[in-house]
């Protein structure tokens, strides 16, 4: 039984690995750039992984493609453009600022401005507000107070 299982183990096709040792470029500077680029590209068939993390076949192909382009002398931007031209902007983990995406990037800062404005208005209002009058006790509370005082 164990032998059958071990054969099964050896025949297991996929590995759980992202970057394989044989993919690594000799030139450490180029390899470093390749890693940086891969971290920003999404694996097209995975849930939410970059090609650097993914062990899908297409991610491996893309990693090799990135390295090929770099060896051929492309700049980082050219490599990214090359892949975006083929797979669409879906592969960009960091969305561009162009088009409607400005809204995405500006959402935080704009909201902060609005929040700060409202917050400041509130704080100024609190500063100038007249000191609160102590609220009169409700009838219930008056009754309870009497009871306590009697004790």
């Amino acid at each position, binding site marked *: 039984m*164990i032998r059958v*299982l*071990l054969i*099964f*183990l050896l025949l*297991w096709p*996929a*590995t*759980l*690995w*992202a*970057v*394989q*040792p*044989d993919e*690594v470029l000799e030139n450490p500077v180029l390899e470093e750039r390749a890693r940086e680029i891969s*971290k*920003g590209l*999404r694996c097209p068939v995975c*849930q*939410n*992984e*970059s090609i650097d*993390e993914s062990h899908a076949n297409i991610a491996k192909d893309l990693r090799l493609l990135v390295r090929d382009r770099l060896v051929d002398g492309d700049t980082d931007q050219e490599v990214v453009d090359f892949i975006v031209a083929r797979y*669409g*902007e*879906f*592969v*960009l*983990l*960091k*969305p561009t600022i162009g*088009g*409607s*995406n400005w809204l*995405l*990037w500006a*959402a*935080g800062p704009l*909201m*902060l401005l609005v*929040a*700060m404005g409202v*917050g400041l208005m*509130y*704080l*100024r209002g*609190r*500063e100038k*507000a*007249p*000191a*609160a009058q102590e609220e009169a006790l409700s009838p219930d509370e008056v009754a309870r107070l009497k009871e306590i005082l009697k004790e």
Partner: protein
Amino acid sequence: MSLDEFTGRFILRPMITELGHFALILAFMVAIVQTIIPLVGAHKKWPAWMAVAEPAATAQFMLTAFSFGALMWAFIVSDFSLQLVTLNSHSSKPMLYKISGTWGNHEGSMLLWVLIVTLFGAMAAWFGNNLPPTLRARVLGVQAAIGVAFFAFILFTSNPFVRLAVPPFDGQDLNPLLQDPGLAFHPPFLYLGYVGLSMAFSFAVAALIEGRVDAAWGRWVRPWTLAAWVFLTIGIALGSWWAYYELGWGGFWFWDPVENASFMPWLLAAALLHSAIVVEKRESLKSWTILLAILAFGFSLIGTFIVRSGLLTSVHAFANDPERGVFILMIMGFFMGGALILFAFRAGAMEARGVFGIVSRESALVANNLLLAVSCFVVFVGTMWPLVAEMFFDRKLSVGPPFFNMAFSPFMLVLGLLLPIGSAMPWKRARISRAVKPLRYVFVLALAVGGLAYAMQSGRSLLGPIGLFLAAWIVMGTIIDLIQRGGRGPDRWARLFRLPRADWGKMVAHAGLGITMMGVCGLMAWQQEDIRVAQFNEPFDVGGYTITLTEVNQYEGPNFLTTMGYITLAKDGREIAQLRPEKRIYPVAQMPTTEAAIDYDLARDVYVVIGDEQANGGWAVRTYIKPLTNWIWIGSGLMALGGLLSLSDRRFRVAAGARKSRQVPVAAE
């Protein structure tokens, strides 16, 4: 087969499951009663109707607990006549994972969800004796309404008690990634947190119906929020720790939609904790606090919706079913829409009373709330943007970690910078120079720590030094703040230990935040990585450590097969540790997993993963040096501990209705 055995197998065991199903339906009925009667009673001021809430809440909880227990029993005894057990369990699975398999699937996890809703409702009933009767009836009524919605969801779209006409001989096993002690308890904690916020929601809606929010309300709602936040902190930390050691490359946070779904309520709960203090101490920020309480639970529902609908694809989504998604969307629309409309009509009645200057503790807490709420908004926009872009602009795009790191982190940086200053401010009116005075030296010292880190590192990264600076600034700043609170004079140290536990909790939790920031920055800035083919007994160096692969063997585990590497880790010629990275295969589930070997240390982790055998006889080995990583979880632990310390503060014990201990001293005085 004896008669006893026969009755056991064919009569009693199936009956437990049927009784569980029946209990669930009964609980649904009780929840409906508990929604209607106490709310009407509170409106008409009929004490008898209001009094229905307490026994109903208890009954609802008992019935749901029985139902959940019955489902767990089916998993423990591997009752494959239940479809759910067949799909998610296997007879050879270890007992711990049979138990955790109960909630490791959609139906079971929703049952756990509603179990916790009823648990919190029952606790509010048991400990809420000192709440005004109408408020209490309304809180329990609203809590039961949430229960009704989710009981209906379970019974009509995701019934865990569905039977198979022809039970198979064995099951299809639980996703092996989920077969892990860290993950076994990740969902329950997360759910305790999500659902704990339902209490804050119920209190908020009850207060809106009541039309009255005062200091006492702030004091009642805070312990529930605090508890929910503590559970969320633990749940998120467990999940992130699990991702770190299980997924095989040592990432701890991926900005995955589902992670964001748990992070957004965490951020809002943190904001709510702080604004409730202002309500309690200063009777201000009332309507904002109510709104936050509504939104915090709203984000819990959004989180549930994201996970359960599969609208945003994610590794966590095990139920991609549009019908369920629509149902949860309806629940969300009902509760959020209803609560917000109520808010729009009633918020005007909540007038603020406290008067305070622009420089004051109140303003600092407002700033805290602004930063937390806006950062939550950024996470929300980033998470939803792919959907929005596709629906409205016809663009298929992704929003990944690089966006969140850039758009979210600045808020945390500012929050960290302001934290020690804000927490040193006195209430009402402060002079900035006086509040900041004791912090001057700490600031200089923290800058020195950051500068030292910058000078000593090999690269030019700013991230690592910033992390160390923030940690030093926050930790030392909060300690100084606590010491100041002890006052002056010879017995100041004794006084320090007599300070309310809430003060200590504040210090510990804030320090924890600083420490977590340090861990995150350190790991992201200074990680080293090495990928290579290792030959047997040929040592190689990574970041000052020597690594030697001596052997690779194959073994059989209880429900998996494993390939195990034997690796010696040494530094300066001295052996530090033996590491055993594994690759596992779970034949039933047909899934491989990696088990990284990690040498844990406070300064750094050495993280080793083994890959495939290579053509030339060597093995692929991946090694990471991960500096300061453990501080991420130590910091999270401190945050949770700080929350627990605050939770045990005397004023909450009194507020939460420790009746006996309250009455005795009064009589004695």
